[in-house]
């Protein structure tokens, strides 16, 4: 591969919740380098610190220790203005599409906000509509049917697709997808994944997938990080980690997912 540029990296990143008896180390001195245009999966059980890490990367929660570097520069989100600037580059899709929208805003307001955020304030109305239509057609939604609708009128799969349409308009450098498909059924899951991959090819962003489903991680990602109790225990390319796991924890995670071509070993729980 040609020379790869580091997009997001962290050194000694740590998050500790509480103190004294309730002191919990959620993320424990993790180091990583995420490269541009790469799809990265962070896999681990519930409570392994995946979501805390994602929140720190997004700047939604403070870091206890360690630094995050964005495109080689130390990340600075000390003021609201700087934070907003940072969020132009990093965006997220969350697990629960139903609680990701402002219930009082109509769909077009959601998309208009995105255009405004990318400096589209002064655009004529027709141009904005054109952009929104394009974004919607990218995710196989019809903009004409969505205008004047509220988010609750959509199905879970549609909401998640609309979320991707938002990302299409925002064109961030990095997308953090926190279990984006765990609340929708297997059939729409393929659609969502294909759209995310299409989006990656379209605007060349880095996608960080957070999931407990190792099959999903294997399908989408270039490199996989396995997280156990706040630490990365194993990382490498998807083929390396999932076809030849070295750590017992990784082996267990792989073993826990139902398989269809091999025998599913139920004795190991």
């Amino acid at each position, binding site marked *: 591969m040609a020379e790869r540029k580091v997009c997001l990296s962290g050194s000694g990143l740590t998050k500790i919740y509480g103190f004294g008896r309730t002191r919990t180390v959620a993320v424990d001195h993790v180091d990583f380098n995420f490269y541009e245009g790469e799809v990265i999966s962070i896999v681990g059980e519930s409570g392994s610190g995946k979501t805390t890490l994602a929140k720190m990367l997004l700047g939604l929660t403070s870091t206890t220790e360690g630094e995050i570097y964005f495109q080689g520069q130390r990340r600075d989100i000390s003021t609201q203005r700087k934070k907003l600037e940072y969020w132009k580059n990093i965006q997220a899709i969350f697990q629960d599409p139903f609680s990701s929208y402002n219930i009082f805003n109509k769909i077009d307001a959601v998309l208009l906000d995105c255009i405004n955020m990318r400096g589209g304030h002064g655009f004529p109305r027709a141009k904005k509509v054109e952009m929104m239509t394009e974004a919607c057609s990218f995710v196989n939604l019809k903009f004409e049917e969505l205008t004047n609708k509220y988010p609750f009128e959509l199905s879970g799969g549609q909401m998640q697709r609309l979320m991707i349409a938002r990302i299409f308009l925002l064109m961030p450098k990095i997308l953090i997808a926190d279990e984006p498909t765990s609340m929708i*059924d297997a059939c729409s899951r393929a*659609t969502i994944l294909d759209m995310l991959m299409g989006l990656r090819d379209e605007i060349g962003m880095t996608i960080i997938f957070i999931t407990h489903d190792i099959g999903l991680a294997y399908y989408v990602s270039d490199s996989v990080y396995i997280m156990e109790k706040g630490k990365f225990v194993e990382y490498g390319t998807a083929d390396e980690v999932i076809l030849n796991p070295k750590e017992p924890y990784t082996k267990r995670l792989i073993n826990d997912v139902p398989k*269809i071509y091999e025998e599913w070993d139920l004795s190991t729980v």
Partner: protein
Amino acid sequence: MGKVLLEVRELTTRYITRFGESVYAVDHVSLKVEEGKSLGIAGESGCGKSTLALSLMGYYFAPLHYMSGEIIVDGHNISGMNPDDVRKAILGKEIAYIPQAAMNALNPTQKIIHFVEDVIRAHDPSADKKAIYERACKLFETVGLPPQVLEKYPVELSGGMKQRTVIAVSVLLSPKVLIADEPSSALDVTSQKMVIKMIRQLLHDGLVGSLIFITHELPLLYNVTDDIMVMYAGQIVEKGAAREAVFDPLHPYSKGLMGSIIVPEEGLREVKLTAIPGVPPNLKNPPSGCRFAERCKYVQPECIVNAVGLRSTEGGRVYRCIFSEKELREAYRNG
């Protein structure tokens, strides 16, 4: 051939909305479950899987209404029974049901043992406390749960543990049919595996007579059940042995579903996941022809006009399509 524990003939149920519209969520469904066997029900969200589960139990509370058909549990016809009678006589003893978020069924202010007592007393008011405790202990041990759980409050247990506790309690009275409606979809993969292991063991040990397992995760279904039934828009579109349904689906919809399977096995990355375009029809006014016609790759003009019936193959599989088995295979081979 084993004893048939649950037989359903042409069951049709509907929801009546507050505007008086009828939604036919289960439309002429027939199925049979034999002793010691398990049946899996697969399908998209909103295809009527859960409604079918409620209908099977005779649990008709508004807006769900019984229309026609027969439900025969171990020789007794329960169709048309009053839901309150069903709850007293059938549920628990004959049919047990595990809903998706079963762990929310636990009362946070009471210990698990109180819950167990409630369940047993509801069916046998004379049972004494010590006997109940011993019985529960024995069952918990067989299903691999530590009996100390009985003395705990729900908040002290993890999600997976709560789910397994509820399953254990639901099979206390050795039901003939256990209906599990997505019992593991709220859990992570490790707890899911424990739940699956436990359900399989229950069936193996004869603590439940037979199993109906509902989920949209096909790899899971393949590993749990003997037979798989695929539903689409309230109707059965395919029914057959699990291996055949997964590796050699006949109906174009099942074919599409199998194309969305994700497993961490070699070769997955080379396979392109196929998503089925479009959305399921609105069941308020379902199309007159084949309900899948709109999204089907192999649609013919007559599909849209005439309703399509179920056909059976020589191997005992059932599917709903105008094409014969041979024609379908030919079509799949040509892409």
